[in-house]
């Protein structure tokens, strides 16, 4: 009885699936999938390497400081970094006083209330504060940005596949759309005339929909003046800020890797000992 019912259920499910298979194939032949501009012209992130890559990688403190400078002078006007506190900048190699100075000098102040009147007010930041958001709320952010919401950048490199390379590619990915050809030599507007970027958006093949609301943020060399004398090329700035945003998303990266090596070393010795123990106990016992 069990087997009979099972057989019938099996025939039913498998049969319906095979029917569906036929249906899928017929549909695919009758109405072949229409190619889309996003599918054909989206570019995977560029290959880029960082000091913190790999199991032994460590952050390049100088690069993180340069990245902070790019963030604070370029990105921070629109993008928040709400999960990071000023005190965390000590990890970038700044002293306590430098951190205080950065907090105090931050362009956006921390919202508070006037202790006398209770009216909304702002005050300079202190190290314990989170980085204040450039906009009071989502509505304000959208109103100031043509109804687009600039995402918070704290976790951006973990919230995108291949995050650091994604940020780097996106920053450098702005192209003139007219006459744009991909690596295969296909011209976008010839293949998809309707894919012309709508007004208010910007063409960028490293963005999933090819059209991004953000205007090109890094547009010229020396847009930022680095304190350490590094030449601020566009690639350098994009790379530095990607490294910085890797740190904001994963501040414990170095602790994680060093703890990992300690755990691994310990476990290899333990496993070796356990193996010897196992072999000793089973010695002579055929199994």
């Amino acid at each position, binding site marked *: 009885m069990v087997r009979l019912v099972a057989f019938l259920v099996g025939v039913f499910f498998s049969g319906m699936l095979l029917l569906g298979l036929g249906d899928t194939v017929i549909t695919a032949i009758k109405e072949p999938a229409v190619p889309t501009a996003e599918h054909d012209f989206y570019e995977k992130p560029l290959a880029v390497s960082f000091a913190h890559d790999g199991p032994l990688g460590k952050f390049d403190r100088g690069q993180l400081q340069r990245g902070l400078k790019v963030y604070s002078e370029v990105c921070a006007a629109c993008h928040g970094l709400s999960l990071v*506190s000023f*005190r965390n900048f000590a990890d970038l190699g700044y002293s306590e006083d430098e951190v205080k100075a950065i907090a105090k000098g931050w362009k956006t102040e921390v919202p508070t209330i006037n202790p006398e009147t209770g009216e909304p007010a702002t005050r300079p930041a202190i190290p*314990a504060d989170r980085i204040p958001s450039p906009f009071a709320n989502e509505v304000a952010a959208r109103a100031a940005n043509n109804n687009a919401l600039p995402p918070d950048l704290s976790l951006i490199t973990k919230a995108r596949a291949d995050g650091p390379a994604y940020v780097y590619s996106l920053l450098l990915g702005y192209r003139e759309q007219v006459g744009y050809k991909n690596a295969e030599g296909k011209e976008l507007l010839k293949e998809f005339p309707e894919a012309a970027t709508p007004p208010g958006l910007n063409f960028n093949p490293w963005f999933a929909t090819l059209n991004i609301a953000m205007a090109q943020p890094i547009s010229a060399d020396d847009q930022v003046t680095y304190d350490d004398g590094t030449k601020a090329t566009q690639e350098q700035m994009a790379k530095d800020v990607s490294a910085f945003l890797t740190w904001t998303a994963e501040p414990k990266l170095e602790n994680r890797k060093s703890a990992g090596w300690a755990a691994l070393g*310990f476990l290899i010795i333990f496993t070796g*000992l356990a193996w010897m*123990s196992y072999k000793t*106990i089973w010695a*002579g016992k055929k199994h």
Partner: protein
Amino acid sequence: MATVKDTTGTPKAPRKATAKAAAGNDAPVMNGVPMETATKDGEGVRRRDFIHIATVSFAGVGAAAVAVPLVSQMSASADVLALASIEVDVAAIQPGQSIKTSWRKQPVFIRNLTPEEIAEANKVAAGGLRDPQTLAERTQPGKENWLITLGVCTHLGCVPLGAAAGEVKGEYGGYFCPCHGSHYDTAGRIRKGPAPTNLVVPEFAFISDTIVKIG
């Protein structure tokens, strides 16, 4: 450890038996009684025991290492520690008034003592007190009118009365803890009741004439 030691005898017996059987050695030794063979093969037993002991000890060390994060996660996190100091503007506090503020999630009393209160506090011989301290020891030089203490009774942690206007100040004009009846004087010293020590004075410093940094 005892179990490891005991059990090693059992498995090693067959090995010895097999090895000797393969070598075609004399039969009488291989009587198949594990413990007996184990004791005869002293050197081997010690080496094997060492491996088992090392393995088990290593596992124990590993377990202890894993316990560290499991325990330390309960201590104060980085954001809590970051709030360890606050700055308070005391300009608006008139003599005789006090305010309550919060430092490390604990109440802090900031009191602007009147000259009479200072005089009363200095009148008492500190040596005779339960927790001998003078007012000068509990305030900053030149700022003796600013009494800054934790608002936490040193008995069992209630918040004493006396900081807000209209509250009972106790028999010595300072603070009074209603939970178990501890009386503090105008220097925040314990004078009567069960509390063992004076109200705690946190680390503080005036960074300007009117701004005090606590912690």
